[in-house]
């Protein structure tokens, strides 16, 4: 058993080596960057080799028969149609081959499912259509959006090298550390996948599932959401930057600085022009996927903001809609995702963009007040 496994393993390795030469043409799984991905890569090669062997034997026989046993060559049909011994043989042999595959596969399954003893833990949340990352040990939180410009998607600009696989805020992890992932979703199912790291886990709203990876090499690894999650399913990529321990520490410090700057924004007062400029960016990152850059939405699917009663009516109702969403629709509660300053900015932008000419502005303090009253009202609403 052992020697057979080793022999197959060696053959698999040789094949894997020839495959790396072909890697740039993308005929096989991506070059692994973790032990799990490496195990899967070899498992796949092994099974492909076995399948290829069986295919050649069985269809070698069939194509020989197609050539030799044809009427046009004058072949007379034999009359045999039963042989119990043969049936038993071709039931038992595949069974034995399958057991040979099941054993190494089971070992990889058990290793993949073992999420114990992590060096660090990151909570990942899928949203329509972006990813949120919370570093539970280091206290860093951020959202990660597609950063490919619309013009490239619509074809009015040349496509960049990492078209659709680039984000504004990548997930950053230190090399050689066991990273435990707690994966969940906010709205619908998503699935977090980075092929080179060998980690894929569905994100399920209301449930937390775990997975893990340990990146062996410094580098940038790209993946995508792989569970259909609505309109922009194809536009929520994942980028993991694996860096040295020192670079990781520096990154954490930088992110904390950004967070405290953002927090101080919440206590500031802005003028309308500042809010509109900031709001336009917030709108593009959070609202334009559904409501569109022109504010017109998609007829029958997503409501327009341009000319809507909410965006041209009383500002409190407008703030409330953005903060708390519309339950039962795709409009989520952005209060959980955006800072007071960002919500104030985006509300101001929406009230003064396109044909909307309300002319007023929301300030972070108003958002904070609305949050307070919503919390106070919540128990009563229950």
């Amino acid at each position, binding site marked *: 058993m052992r020697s057979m496994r080793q022999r197959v393993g060696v053959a698999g390795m040789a094949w894997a080596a020839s495959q790396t030469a072909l890697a740039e043409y993308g005929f096989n799984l991506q070059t692994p960057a973790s032990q799990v991905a490496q195990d*899967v890569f070899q498992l796949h090669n092994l099974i492909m080799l076995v399948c290829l062997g069986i295919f050649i034997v069985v269809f070698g026989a069939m194509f020989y028969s197609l050539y030799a046993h044809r009427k046009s060559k004058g072949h007379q049909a034999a009359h045999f149609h039963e042989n119990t011994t043969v049936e038993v043989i071709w039931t038992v042999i595949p069974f034995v081959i399958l057991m040979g595959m099941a054993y190494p596969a089971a070992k990889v*399954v058990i290793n993949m499912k073992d999420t114990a003893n992590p060096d660090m833990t990151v909570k990942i949340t899928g949203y329509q259509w972006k990813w949120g990352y919370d570093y539970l040990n280091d206290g860093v939180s951020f959202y990660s959006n597609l950063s490919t410009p619309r013009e490239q998607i619509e074809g009015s600009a040349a496509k960049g090298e990492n078209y659709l696989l680039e984000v504004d805020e990548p997930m950053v992890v230190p090399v050689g550390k066991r990273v435990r992932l707690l994966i969940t979703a906010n709205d619908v199912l998503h699935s977090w996948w980075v092929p080179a790291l060998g980690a894929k886990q569905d994100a399920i709203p209301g449930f937390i599932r775990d997975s893990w990876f340990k990146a062996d090499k410094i580098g940038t690894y790209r993946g995508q959401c792989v569970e259909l999650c*609505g309109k922009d399913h194809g536009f929520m990529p994942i980028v993991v930057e694996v860096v040295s321990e020192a670079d990781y520490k520096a990154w954490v410090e930088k992110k904390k600085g950004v967070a405290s700057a953002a927090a101080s924004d919440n206590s500031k007062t802005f003028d309308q022009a500042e809010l509109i400029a900031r709001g336009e960016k917030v709108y593009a990152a959070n609202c334009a996927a559904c409501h569109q850059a022109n504010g017109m939405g998609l007829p029958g699917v997503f409501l327009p903001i341009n000319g809507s009663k909410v965006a041209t009516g009383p500002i409190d109702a407008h703030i409330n809609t953005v903060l708390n969403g519309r339950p039962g629709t795709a409009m989520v509660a952005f209060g959980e995702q955006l800072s007071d300053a960002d919500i104030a900015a985006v509300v101001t932008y929406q009230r003064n963009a396109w044909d909307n000419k309300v002319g007023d502005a929301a300030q972070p303090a108003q958002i904070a007040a609305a949050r307070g009253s919503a919390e106070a009202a919540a128990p009563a609403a229950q």
Partner: protein
Amino acid sequence: MSDAAHAHGHDDHGHHAPPSGIMRWLTTTNHKDIGSLYLFFALIMLFTAGAMALLIRAELFQPGLQLTNPDFFNQLTTMHGLIMIFGVIMPAFSGFANWQVPLMLGAPDMAFPRMNNWAFWILPVAGLLLMSSFLLPGGAVAGGWTMYPPLFIQGGISYDLTILAVHIMGLSSIMGSINIITTILNMRAPGLTLMKMPLFCWTWLITAYLLIATMPVLAGAVTMLLTDRNFGTHFFNAAGGGDPVMFQHIFWFFAHPEVYILILPAFGIVSQVIPTFARKPLFGYASMVYATASIAILSFIVWAHHMFTVGMPAAAQLFFMFSTMLIAVPTGVKVFNWVATMWKGSMTFETPMLFAIAFVCLFTIGGFSGLVLAIAPVDIQLHDTYYVVAHFHYVLVSGALFSIFAGIYYWMPKWTGHMYDETLGKWHFWLSVIGMNIVFFPMHFLGLAGMPRRIPDYALQFTEFNQIATVGAFIFGFSQLVFLAVVMKAIKGGEKATTKVWEGAEGLEWTVPSPAPYHTFETAPVIK
């Protein structure tokens, strides 16, 4: 008319001519008419859902959004899947069952002719419900044919129409299955024991049991979706104590047996065609029956291999991995038996045989990719990528659809009384088989390289294989017009078919004249 009927007395009741025009087809209880209706319905739906596939492939010809927007793209993939499964493959197999089961058993008709009429005529209603949803506000259903909540809960009115359509199609399948089971168990000619009946009848008998066992499960799942959507229940909503993953368990408990519902009758057709053109009896008939039954039974304990990425405990992953791998054993037995049937035969290669040989070879490629996907750790890498798309199109296009082509060419002379145009048939075969491989083979590489399925736009490294696939799709798609031409030509006229049609043909259907008279086997033949 009533006078004439009375004058002829009771015995002649079955012989008066059917009403003419549309009423003939609406009111028919004749198994041959209903068989034709199913097949024409499947043909129309094949071109409808095929056109959607071409639009999908055209959008994917290059990166960027050109022809569709992401929402419409999702509508196309969802409807393409639903219609191809419920509107093409299943009705086509029902058409074969209606035409062939009574002819093969020496029965005068199906057991419940009026229910047979009803089972067919509710299908176009379901098709209309599905198709009309393209015109509704928000467009057609876009949540994937798998209908996973919570995404499916978010959608508009067309999602409710889809649920209704699925209910109706399930009802139709259940009625059809009751009919087939009853016919096979009760209406075989004297002496035709179960273990003597053609393998096509065996595969359909087992398929019918699968349908009766699983269709109510699907009905339950979509009813829960309906009440979650409209009546405030929380079966699949975690905020209300439900669980979105529960839907997947229920759905795949239906949908994995469904996979075999879509392929067992194909096994049956191919097991009729190969012996005819090898001029040699089917090898291992009994083991074929046992293998079919084993596949059907195993299909109930493998469902969660569609869900290896939801986060099951290791023990569950191992169980579903092992049970799934086990299915390779009986499936392998079938392939070996087909090859052994050809071995030392006296083969000729008319179009039905060509499609049957392509079926054996290409279905096995789909089987091998299925084995790759059964290995849980590999599946976790490949789940929801184009590898899966390649896998199920190998089993459904070069598997189910090719067997349907084989069956049509094989039995068309018996149905129409005319030989089809062999040259055109061969053109259809070669264009289809080449086109099909150009579309779907590169998808294996796309999936391995990491391209997710159900995306309207992709990263640049996937461009070349997508372009190849799109070219193949248009070759494959337009070559089906050749098929249409062959069918129309054979219906209109052509060389007269003999009673036996094929030199090596065996079985009761080849003892009745071609075309098969409107009523056959009013007196049961006796099988020695």
